[in-house]
């Protein structure tokens, strides 16, 4: 018996209506743990080379981990994987909430969706009952509205994922939405769901899960909650959630401002965590079994209307606020809500709007082309763009492609300030003086996303002037010295194994990464749930295997994939930061090559960034090595 797991894979071919339930293979659980590991292996095995992301042959995989749904801190995570409409390569996205546990209680660790439904539909799962039902009545509804409607129809105890109009219309950065404000935001999973004519999946599970040592888990699980709550930082961090880092990111000059033209936002005190508390927040909102509820549910009133919204969390503040220069937290929250309803990833949507605004400022996009003026700081203009994008109407059809494709279409130098890597828009950390963070963005398997390795703190620790200098200069506002470029690879690689490991386990990383809930606790809880005694180092080896595999997937799927795909946009290696703590700093192209050279060598990849045969075999991926050799 596989302890910890529900024990089955549910596969639904939406074209034929065929529904199959198969046992979860023991070797898959053993070698890939769960969640992100399952997604990576199944995408490699089951997607034919060259599959169009929007074709019925692409898969949308929803996977849980062995810890999902158990009495373990923050065990509500669910992982989504597909071939990316944004990059054409490997894609995954992680979501909080309650969906994963419900899927497991219904009896399934993994849901694999293939094909395309003949008309708008939603998948109904209630334990052993699985049906494709009509979603004609919900097609066109906002993602939040559709969830409300389905909850009314089915009952509050169903956990539901939905897409908004952006997903229906194949916007390449459409997200999957859940629990009125949680998303699998990045990489366009919502668009793939839309391409399958699937508006929603509703699940209710009433079963239990096999646990290796239920009594021990109850005792240690309860202890774990108390330990997390006793951690230094718990009381200080929880009230503001991730929005609480806004001040710090500005103080170290890493806040993406005005489409990443600069890295310091003078009005950041108006859009920080305290502003969320004072102007928006009604209550905290947490995910399944979470002792540290980081969600902030509140109400925002603006000139355009008043809305209830979860958030904004930090990334939305950075991209909708800083990058688009919205100066009030209410405006950011409103833009956040519009994105949530339309089913747009707030990070990519903010980056796309910021790019369009800069194009407008430079005369590259005109009022005639856009349909109205769009300027930095203009909430109404942003909402206009988001609605156009979600409908793929007019200028929205161009912007729905994301900044990489849109800038290639528009040209005139706009590629230089299209802020992305591999086709995925950059998240909330401007990195021209943060070489570790820059390397993390360059090498993240899904594109420019921070959650694979967040190295900014290490960059600051390594670069800051002496503490006495900081005191005499008033501390945080002084100009920072240029950071050291060499020696970043090992740390970034270490982080790239740690953070994604949590996506394999099916739990939130926050308690470990931010509060310091120790690794030995996870070893113990993993053992009590699964019966497998694995050290932290052994778990990280599996995470490393998955990392090589996702890189191999992109090598297989993207023509010519390699080093050229790892560079940031020219803005970051040609334009010095114009002001703020990092004024004058940037990384040269040669320095970027130094970062990549060291990284590839440490990874065991060749100079083009392709995993070597020896590395793949050493990682337990001999079949992948063989397949890549045949492809060559």
């Amino acid at each position, binding site marked *: 018996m596989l302890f910890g797991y529900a024990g089955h894979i549910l596969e639904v071919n939406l074209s034929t209506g065929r529904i199959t339930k198969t046992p979860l293979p023991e070797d898959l659980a053993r070698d890939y743990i769960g969640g992100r590991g399952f997604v990576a292996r199944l995408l490699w095995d089951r997607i034919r080379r060259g599959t169009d992301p929007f074709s019925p042959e692409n898969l949308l995989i929803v996977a849980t981990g062995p810890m999902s749904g158990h009495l373990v801190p923050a065990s509500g995570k669910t992982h989504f994987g597909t071939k990316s409409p944004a990059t054409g390569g490997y894609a995954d996205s992680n979501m909080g909430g309650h969906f994963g546990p419900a899927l497991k209680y219904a009896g399934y660790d993994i849901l694999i969706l293939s094909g395309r439904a003949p008309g708008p539909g939603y998948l109904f799962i209630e334990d052993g009952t699985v049906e494709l039902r009509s979603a004609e009545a919900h097609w066109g509804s906002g993602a939040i509205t559709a969830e409300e409607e389905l909850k009314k129809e089915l009952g509050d105890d169903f956990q539901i994922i939905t897409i908004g109009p952006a997903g229906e219309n194949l916007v390449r950065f459409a997200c999957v939405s859940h629990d009125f404000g949680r998303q699998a935001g990045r990489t366009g999973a919502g668009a793939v769901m839309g391409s399958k004519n699937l508006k929603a999946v509703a699940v209710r599970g009433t079963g239990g899960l096999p646990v290796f040592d239920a009594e021990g888990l109850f005792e240690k699980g309860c202890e774990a909650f108390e330990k997390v709550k006793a951690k*230094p930082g718990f009381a200080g961090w929880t009230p503001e959630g991730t929005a609480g880092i806004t001040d710090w990111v500005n103080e*170290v000059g890493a806040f993406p401002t005005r489409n990443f033209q600069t890295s310091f936002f003078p009005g950041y005190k108006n859009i920080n965590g305290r502003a969320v508390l004072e102007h928006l927040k009604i209550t905290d909102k947490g995910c399944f079994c979470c002792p540290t509820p980081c969600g902030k549910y509140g109400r925002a009133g603006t000139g355009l209307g008043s809305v209830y919204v979860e958030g904004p969390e930090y990334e939305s503040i950075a991209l909708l606020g800083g990058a688009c220069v919205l100066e009030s937290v209410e405006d950011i929250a409103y833009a956040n809500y519009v994105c949530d309803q339309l089913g747009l990833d707030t990070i990519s949507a903010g980056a796309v709007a910021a790019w369009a605004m800069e194009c407008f400022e430079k005369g590259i996009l005109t009022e005639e082309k856009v349909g109205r003026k769009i300027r930095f700081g203009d909430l109404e203009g942003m909402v206009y763009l988001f609605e156009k994008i979600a409908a793929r109407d007019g200028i929205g059809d161009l912007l729905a492609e994301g900044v990489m494709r849109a800038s290639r279409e528009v040209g005139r130098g706009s590629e230089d300030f299209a802020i992305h890597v591999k086709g995925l828009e950059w998240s909330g950390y401007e990195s021209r003086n943060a070489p570790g963070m820059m390397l993390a963005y360059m090498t993240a398997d899904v594109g420019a996303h921070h959650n694979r390795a967040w190295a900014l703190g290490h960059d600051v620790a390594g670069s800051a002037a002496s*503490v006495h200098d900081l005191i005499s200069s008033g501390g945080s506002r002084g100009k920072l010295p240029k950071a050291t470029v060499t020696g970043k690879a090992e740390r970034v690689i270490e982080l790239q194994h740690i953070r994604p490991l949590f996506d394999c386990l099916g739990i939130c990383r926050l308690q470990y990464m931010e509060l310091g809930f120790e690794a030995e606790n996870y070893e113990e809880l993993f053992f009590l749930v699964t019966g497998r005694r694995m050290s932290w180092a052994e778990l990280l080896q599996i995470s490393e295997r998955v990392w090589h595999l996702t890189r191999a997937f992109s090598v297989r799927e993207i023509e010519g994939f390699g080093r050229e795909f790892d560079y940031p946009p020219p803005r970051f290696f040609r334009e010095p930061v114009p002001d703020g703590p990092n004024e004058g700093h940037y990384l040269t192209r040669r320095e970027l090559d130094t970062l990549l050279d060291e990284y590839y060598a440490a990874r065991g990849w060749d100079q083009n960034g392709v995993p070597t045969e020896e590395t793949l075999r050493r990682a337990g991926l001999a079949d992948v090595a063989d397949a890549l050799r045949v492809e060559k």
Partner: protein
Amino acid sequence: MRITLHLSGGLRAVLAHLPEEMTIHMEGPASLREILVEAGINPLLVMLITVDGERREKNRVIDHDARIGLVGPMAGG
């Protein structure tokens, strides 16, 4: 003043040589920024500070024994 500092996991991730809890003695009054320097902690690495459970700015002056919570840099969602 007897100052007890509690370092978060995020802070210890970048200052691995420091313990989770440490106590220092200082002549008061002193700003939180000065206290951090005295403890060998770069103020720039501290994202958020609580004093006896209440959030405080780095320029806040402390003139009595205190328990200070230090939260290090962390990523968004």
